[in-house]
């Protein structure tokens, strides 16, 4: 689906350029408090979640589908004897579905005492970004559902979309 992809990418790149100009101005100031993030890829965009909420990253083994489960639930997996519900993060964020690849991973997170798995396209790295580099997510340039985002970090020519795990995973039940 290259056409769709370009449609999504184009505004994002425009936004990135605009941010670049701002970032150059910002780097002069002293590095303030930092965010420690695990970043991963969805639909070619880089997302970040606080490392403090990440328990581990596992390979995608057998995920068992659960009949009649909500659409954004990929299924359940065996995490050392615990039943781990795995959320299809693409679907949760309103991104198009994609096939599993050898790079697909499940990021195991703990949100308010609940342990859940997030299916992502690939895990990129653990990194630190200055809190000052975070700006609110501009709706028009992000393909994901903005309600679940905390903002966007622009740092060293990268753009990291910060997920709000509580909002994304624990909708008012």
């Amino acid at each position, binding site marked *: 689906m290259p056409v769709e992809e370009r449609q999504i990418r184009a505004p994002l790149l425009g936004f990135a350029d605009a941010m670049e100009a701002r970032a150059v101005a910002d780097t002069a100031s002293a590095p303030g408090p930092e965010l420690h993030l695990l970043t991963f890829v969805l639909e070619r965009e880089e997302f970040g979640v606080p*490392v403090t909420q990440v328990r*581990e990253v596992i390979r995608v083994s*057998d995920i*068992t589908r*659960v009949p009649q489960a909500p659409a954004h639930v990929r299924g359940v997996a065996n995490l050392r*004897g615990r039943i781990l519900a795995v959320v299809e993060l693409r679907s949760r964020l309103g991104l198009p579905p994609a096939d599993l690849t050898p790079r697909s*991973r499940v990021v195991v997170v703990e949100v308010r005492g609940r342990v859940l798995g997030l299916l992502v396209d690939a895990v990129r790295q*653990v990194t630190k970004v200055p809190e000052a580099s975070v700006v609110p997510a501009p709706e028009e340039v992000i393909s994901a559902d903005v309600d679940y985002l905390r903002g966007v970090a622009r740092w060293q020519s990268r753009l990291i979309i910060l997920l709000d795990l509580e909002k994304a995973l624990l909708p008012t039940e």
Partner: protein
Amino acid sequence: MSVGDENPFGELLQDYVLECLPLAEQVADTFVELERRWRAGDPADELLGSLPGRLHTVKGNSAMMGLTPAQETAHALEDACGLLRRSSERRTDPAAALLITGGGLLVDLVRQASPELDPGPAARYVERVRQWMQGEGPPAADTQSERRRTDRRGGGGADKTDSVVRVDFRRLDALLEVLGEGLIQHSALAEAYRRLARRSGACEELDRLDQTILALEKTLKRLESTLMETRLLPIASVFGRFPRMLRDTAEAEGKRVRLLQSGGETPLDKAVLDRLSEPLLHLVTNAIVHGMEPPDARSLAGKPEEGTIRLDAAPHAGRVVIRVADDGRGLDEKAIRKKAEALGQELRDDEVVPLRSLIFLPGLSTAEQVSRLAGRGVGLDVVAGAIHALGGTIDVETEPGKGTAFTLSLPVTLAIIRSLIVEIDHERFALPMAHVAETVRAEPDAIREINHRGVAQWRGDLIHVADGGAVLGTAAADRAPRRFYVVMAAGGKRQALLVDRLVGHQDIVVKGLDPALGRPDVVSGTTILGDGRVACILDSVRILEGGRRAG
């Protein structure tokens, strides 16, 4: 006596009789023939020679089955025959009579094949043979009474087991199943009450019904906890096996190891204990073979030559925590990470991939050289799998040079249900056996369509045959026809479900549904299958009700 000392081969008692009774009868017949030949002046060497092999087999088999009186009788006869083969001057009439008595006793004991037999007659007979072999001559035989007293012990004499009853564990399982049905019926009753109350409003009779239903629930819960307690055994029944095995293994490996234990009195459900011994044994074996350094390496490292393995159990927060710790060399974390990477695990950042998630990977081994049996090991992944299947967790801590500790956390009891495992559209599902009436091969013409519903003839009735994929919402368009259907029955309702494959029967440990999964109509829970995959447990009752939640 406890319910824990049941013979592991108990189910083979029939096979035991089939194999040993003809042997015992041949032996008994041979004794009679010996007496005849000896009286005729024939030493009958070849007849005597045919006996030890048969007696040896009966002895070994009886020992395996835990049938000690038969084992000891066969042993005594074997010894007696050995002596008679060596010294022909002992082949006398009284000797033949002694053998014939023993042959009859052995036939009786083998035929009855009961672990409950009075050990007295066999013990007395063994003593008589011993005296005869020492040349004291056979004491006056009380043959008849010996044979008669091999009958089952009567309920009479009160001994030390006064207030303890021996119960076949399967009966406790059956009781648990009955209780489970009671609990289901209780919830049906409560549901009926709620509907009734909604329809007719409050009244005194309804109040009383409500009270009774609440009281019934309390009674059932009390029954459940009493029953669960009955099933508990101290973990010492598993720990007790370790000292000997540890000694053997340490010796074979040239290591010096001592075993310290604590918490042996901690109670666990027998079903958990039964499935725990193997993984624990594996952890202990590993600790000796791989964890412990040889004595010289230990003293070089400034440690005592004798290593220590600790086995500790303790109740903790409604579960039981077991720790297997050694003071050996510790795990080589670098090697494990390297090997895991070679196995395809991506390890970009140590912070997010803890050691515990690698050490239990299938096929992980840090062996430097590929060994001759490579690829066929029982690895830690199998241990972890067994623990997980019990609803337990396993974790590892290690420090180079200091040692390794595995921590297991296990449920005290198991909610286990016997299930039929089926495959529908490439996924496996568990169907509780309580509601499975029959499995049938789906012949092409057997299922007809009436009013757009599949129906089939079953035991003289027409029953609805639903497609498993349609019920579960998984049906693929281009699939092959399903090959079997499972007839489910509950509460007078019957329906069949078409499935692709019958995988087999299994006792599964029930696990809950994560709230993130919503409340599916057709699934009541999840379980971990033997291969580590998760399977959904189908809610047969809801499926029979048409798949829609009541209310």
